């Protein structure tokens, strides 16, 4: 990607993620994240030039919430944009903030993603995304058993189910280290069989325990030009590159399906543009938008351009655990916390925190020089970010 100037992430703020936040209204909840991000960056709203705000369309049944939310965002009198690209909204917000700073339009941009899923009716919103004449009757929202069925067919029921549950339990172990995570269940590996048998089935072998939460929460991030970022932060997380791809999934049904997934497409493009030949070894960490354990497991293969069963072996061997050679979602990921309009931003934010060394209880034990973060949404929409530390950039130069 050609950039007019470099952009660094210098502040991250997150509200607590929870199933219910009755004690705060929307701008109050957002304000918690904004205050934390400003504190980390060591600035006030006076130094922010522009506010980018987003969430899922209509999820709280509020039109143009960015206007009303000015009470909590600090956007009064500032330039402001609203971005709403479904599940990827949070990552698209980060992409928009990067563009605004890289272009030279603004030096400091605050990006905010939020959702209060308990206030609205999410499945009602999601199922309305398809063409009313040709595809809407087939929409089931975010629940699909297709990946489980495909993996069972490819690898056998026993191995596929065990790997999906191992992935789920590893993610919960990570969430237990993140005090802001919504679902922290304290699952133990010896519970795998019992969970697989007793967790309610949603669609086919997609069970409740595999699925992401529905959370209330907000995330805020501060993006600064290189000059400003160096003044504000000892170790900013630099935005190396990002790629967005999407397609209308109904087209597959009509015999026009591209073989390539948007994940694999984005990964190929991102790695080629940045000279990455062996992502598993050249990247230290991956914060993946994993809506379910089945998807998380399957998408490892797509994002890392793996063949055969290597993705299963990465989970079975514990390579994706915090002390493994390719840690995935030290935050606990989307299965633990899913305030949708914030979720994809949290991936970029958590990857940035790891590079900045500010992830707290779930900070990786070794330096993170290069991190990947992905966003996902309907219909088949991927945003893939590559972040880097100063060490990585000096090595590359």
């Amino acid at each position, binding site marked *: 990607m050609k950039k007019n100037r470099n952009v660094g992430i210098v502040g991250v703020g997150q509200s607590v993620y929870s199933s219910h936040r009755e004690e705060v209204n929307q701008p109050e909840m957002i304000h918690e994240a904004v205050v934390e991000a400003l504190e980390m960056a060591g600035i006030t709203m006076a130094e922010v030039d522009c506010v980018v705000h987003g969430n899922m369309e209509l999820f709280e049944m509020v039109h143009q919430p960015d206007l009303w939310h000015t009470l909590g965002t600090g956007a009064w009198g500032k330039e402001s944009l609203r971005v709403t690209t479904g599940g990827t909204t949070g990552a698209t917000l980060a992409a928009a903030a990067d563009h605004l700073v890289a272009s030279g339009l603004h030096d400091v941009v605050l990006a905010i993603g939020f959702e209060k899923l308990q206030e609205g*009716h999410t499945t009602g919103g999601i199922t309305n995304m398809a063409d009313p004449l040709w595809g809407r009757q087939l929409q089931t929202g975010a629940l699909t058993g297709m990946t489980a069925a495909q993996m069972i067919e490819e690898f056998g029921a026993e191995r596929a189910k065990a790997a999906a549950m191992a992935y789920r339990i590893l993610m919960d172990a990570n969430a237990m280290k993140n005090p802001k995570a919504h679902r922290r269940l304290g699952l133990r590996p010896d519970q795998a069989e019992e969970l697989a048998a007793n967790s309610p089935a949603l669609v086919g072998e997609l069970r409740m325990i595999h699925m992401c939460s529905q959370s209330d929460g907000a995330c805020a991030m501060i993006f600064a030009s290189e000059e400003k970022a160096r003044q504000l932060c000892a170790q900013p997380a630099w935005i190396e590159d990002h790629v967005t791809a999407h397609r209308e999934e109904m087209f597959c049904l009509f015999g026009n399906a591209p073989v390539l997934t948007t994940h694999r497409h984005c990964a190929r493009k991102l790695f080629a543009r940045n000279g990455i030949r062996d992502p598993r070894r050249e990247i230290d960490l991956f914060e993946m938008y994993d809506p379910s354990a089945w998807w998380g497991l399957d998408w490892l293969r797509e994002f890392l351009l793996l063949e055969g069963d290597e993705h299963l072996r990465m989970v079975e061997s514990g390579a994706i655990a915090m002390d493994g050679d390719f840690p995935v979602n030290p935050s606990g990921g989307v299965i633990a916390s899913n305030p949708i309009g914030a979720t994809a931003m949290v991936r970029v934010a958590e990857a940035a925190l790891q590079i900045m060394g500010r992830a707290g209880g779930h900070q990786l034990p070794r330096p993170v020089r290069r991190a990947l973060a992905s966003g996902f949404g309907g219909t088949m929409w991927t945003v893939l970010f590559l972040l880097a530390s100063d060490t990585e950039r000096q090595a590359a130069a």
Partner: protein
Amino acid sequence: MELTPDLRDCFTVPGKLALPYTYFAGRIGSRFLLALQEEHRILGVRCAGCATVLVPPRATCDRCQADLADTWVEVGPAGRVENFTVVRYADRHVPEPVPLVLALIRLDGADTPLVHRLGGMDPEAVRVGLRVTAVFAAEPRDTLLCIDHFRPLAPQPSAAGPRPQGG
């Protein structure tokens, strides 16, 4: 481009969306509602940063980002009509028979106006600057309709009385 499109045999697909929601009022909004329900008192918050009393209350000042959570002040129950509109069009979403007056009422002691219904007078006689006061609902309600409506402080031509001519 056809200037007169041919619309013969063109189907339309009817649909309907349900938009259910549950708004979380938060602590600030809830405190305001409780004071209305239990004490018939109207509360605002005072921002020391910009010396403004804000009604409805809010947790943060949008201008100076000050925390307003513990800056409660009582306002009203009387106030001044800052502006108003007369709803004359009956539609399914209009909650009561028309004509109906919606007014921006700045309560005594407040710097910002509250939207509410104005009743107990002829809609044609409402003027900016009119002094009004809150009439609380007999039954407690979970919304701003704890105040049923605002009525004029001084006797006005009644709604049932003769309407002005013309207009």
